[in-house]
């Protein structure tokens, strides 16, 4: 089982832990079984919930899997800090990976310039969804720039609609939807470098760039009539419900939804929409500041970390680095491969293909910033303060100041 202590070089199975959806896990296991057989090893994938928390406990106890797929660079950094991970630079053929993977994907797994986490599965967050049929009927076009986006929203409003589907209640994680907005906006207003500085706190939360981004978001979220249900609804309505009003009978309850690629799954869409995904759901990239300008894409994913330097584990790591590994997972789930040479025909529908294409075409793939920040901020104050701000308990300046203050000193 997954309890085998690390460092066991005996011929036992290589264990891999991941928190990916069950269907993905199944698909990956299928592929890896084939590949592993060839390589003469045995690999066992276990799905664990909340691996980001569990792994730290397990490390301190010295009881880890051979490879763990961690959903956040921040966690990878902690694991490295705890001395539980092995660098991958010598294990993998980084040079060729650099070429075949989405631009910047390898950077996401680097800690102090050494590669520790290999992106295995990816999701794309810089997306705007819309109700395709109604959208086209109304004669709207996907926006090419942020200003166009504002104009589109105003247009919808003047047509008597509500532009934004913005909901973000998520139990213990309420707030992450807002951080995604902030990240997308910061990378657009500040560019890749400013974004990376911001993630490492070399650029404070109180920086004008961040404020500029926040101002745009404030405009979207808090302008009267912009959001379905008004301000209160943003933090109170489950994020899972966001897409449904778009497909209200007659007229969409709201028209625009900024969400990640996973939102194409059956859990977030009405059944009949999911059944006709390509016809019903429109998707476009979150636009750059200027039309045609630098358009990085923000996303997330699961980073494979090597926690045992046995040969078998290394072999398994190499298997995970191949593009084919997703061959079985992609057709049945929302799995997106970070490898540009992945056979896109395997994606189950056009929507997925176009989403993947957004990433493959992007100038840079930037990892979800809040996932890279220290947990106190990325999964703590950033969420909380955004929530408090959107909920009307604080103004944006206080919120940003508070986040900045909460950054751990060391």
């Amino acid at each position, binding site marked *: 089982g997954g309890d085998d202590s690390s460092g066991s070089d005996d011929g036992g199975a290589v264990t891999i832990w991941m928190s990916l959806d069950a269907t993905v896990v199944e698909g990956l296991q299928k592929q890896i079984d084939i590949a592993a057989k060839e390589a003469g090893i045995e690999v066992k994938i276990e799905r664990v919930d909340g691996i980001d928390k569990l792994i730290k406990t397990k490390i301190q106890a010295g009881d880890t899997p051979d490879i763990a797929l961690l959903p956040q660079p921040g966690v990878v950094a902690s694991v490295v800090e705890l001395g539980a991970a092995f660098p991958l630079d010598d294990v993998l053929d980084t040079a060729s990976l650099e070429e075949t993977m989405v631009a910047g994907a390898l950077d996401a797994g680097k800690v102090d310039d050494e590669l520790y986490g290999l992106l295995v599965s990816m999701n794309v967050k810089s997306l705007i969804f819309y109700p395709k049929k109604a959208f086209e009927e109304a004669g709207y076009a996907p926006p090419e720039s942020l200003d166009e986006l504002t104009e589109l929203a105003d247009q919808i409003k003047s047509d008597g609609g509500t532009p934004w589907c913005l909901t973000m209640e998520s139990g*213990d994680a309420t707030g992450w939807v807002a951080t995604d907005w902030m990240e997308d906006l910061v990378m657009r207003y500040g560019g890749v470098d400013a974004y990376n500085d911001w993630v490492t706190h070399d650029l404070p939360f109180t920086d004008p760039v961040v404020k500029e981004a926040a101002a745009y978001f404030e405009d979207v979220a808090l302008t009267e009539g912009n959001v379905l249900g008004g301000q209160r609804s943003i933090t109170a309505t489950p994020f899972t419900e966001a897409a449904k009003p778009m497909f209200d009978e007659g007229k969409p309850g709201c028209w625009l939804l900024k969400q990640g690629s996973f939102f194409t799954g059956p859990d977030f869409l009405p059944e009949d929409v999911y059944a006709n995904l390509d016809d019903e759901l429109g998707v476009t990239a979150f636009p750059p500041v200027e039309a045609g300008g630098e358009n990085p894409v923000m996303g997330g994913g699961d980073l494979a970390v090597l926690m045992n330097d046995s040969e078998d584990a290394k072999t398994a790591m190499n298997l995970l680095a191949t593009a084919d590994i997703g061959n079985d997972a992609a057709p049945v789930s929302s799995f997106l491969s970070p490898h540009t040479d992945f056979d896109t025909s395997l994606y189950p529908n056009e929507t997925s293909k176009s989403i993947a294409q957004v990433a493959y075409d992007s100038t840079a793939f930037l990892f979800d910033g809040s996932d890279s920040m220290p*947990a106190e901020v990325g999964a703590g104050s950033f969420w909380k303060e955004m929530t408090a701000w959107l*909920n009307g308990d604080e103004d944006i300046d206080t919120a940003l100041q508070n986040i900045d203050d909460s950054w751990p000193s060391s």
Partner: protein
Amino acid sequence: MLEKTLTALITVLAGIGAALLLYWVLNKISELLPEKYEERLKPWFYILPAYLAIAIFVIYPAVQTFIYSFKTKVGFPAETWTGLDNYSNLLSSDAFRQTLLNTLLWILFVPVTVVILGLLVALLADRLATRGENAVKTLIFMPMAISMVGAATVWGLVYDYRPPGRPQVGILNGIVDALGGDPIAWLQENTLHFNSFLLMVMLLWMNVGFAMVLLSAAVKGVPTETLEAARIDGAGERQVYFRVVLPQIKGTIVTVFITVLIGVMKVFDIVFVMTNGNFNTNIIGNEFYLQFFNNNNQGAAAAIAVMLMLAVIPIMIYQVRTFRAEEAGR
């Protein structure tokens, strides 16, 4: 499958058998000792396994926690001593003070209410015929049987909010809707800590069953003759309860109260799954959990734990007192 069930069953029996055997052996050992030592050592043998378990699983980590509370970067290679920093950082933070205040509200409201409701159900159900009593108690108990995830879902369906005009899924907003009002974002409504109280209601819902079970057992243990005597003495049912039953189950009431109180001090899951402390609902247990698991800040977490331990000292003193009084009266 069958094999697995069998092995499980065998291990179960073996485990229990082993525990029994342990005591039997301990007992035998003490009996083999000279009489003088036997009486002296036996109590120790009886509490030894229990205390060993507590020492290893609770006391040792608690002591470790105490030590960690003066350190930072606990668990990392960079672990260092920081003196009282963890404490001063916490206490100087506004958010933490709010958290303490919220926790205090919980402490003031929940244990008392749980005990009162549990007692009410225990007493009233006691008056029903056995079948009715069992039915009522089962229904009240039911929430205890639900896992935390389940409970979160249950109460999600109570407090749920959908934007105005959309179909409401939560019962409360369903009612508001039916009355023609605008839906209310219940868990966001923090005037007078309203949302904290809504979360407390969840804890009540889950804990009253606990209090009821124990109190019901105690109510049934009250000697019937004393109730009869009170009735003969002209006491009405209410007086029988307040003057005869309650004083006699005071011990259990205190036990339940303390248990719930301490439970409330460290409760985190409700707040964690419902709001994660947003909207000014944070409480100390949740903060602890966050620092511990989310923030990887075991030092701060430990400092919080130490404060909790300090907070139970009055309870411990109270226990010593009752202990002594009890002993004198036996």
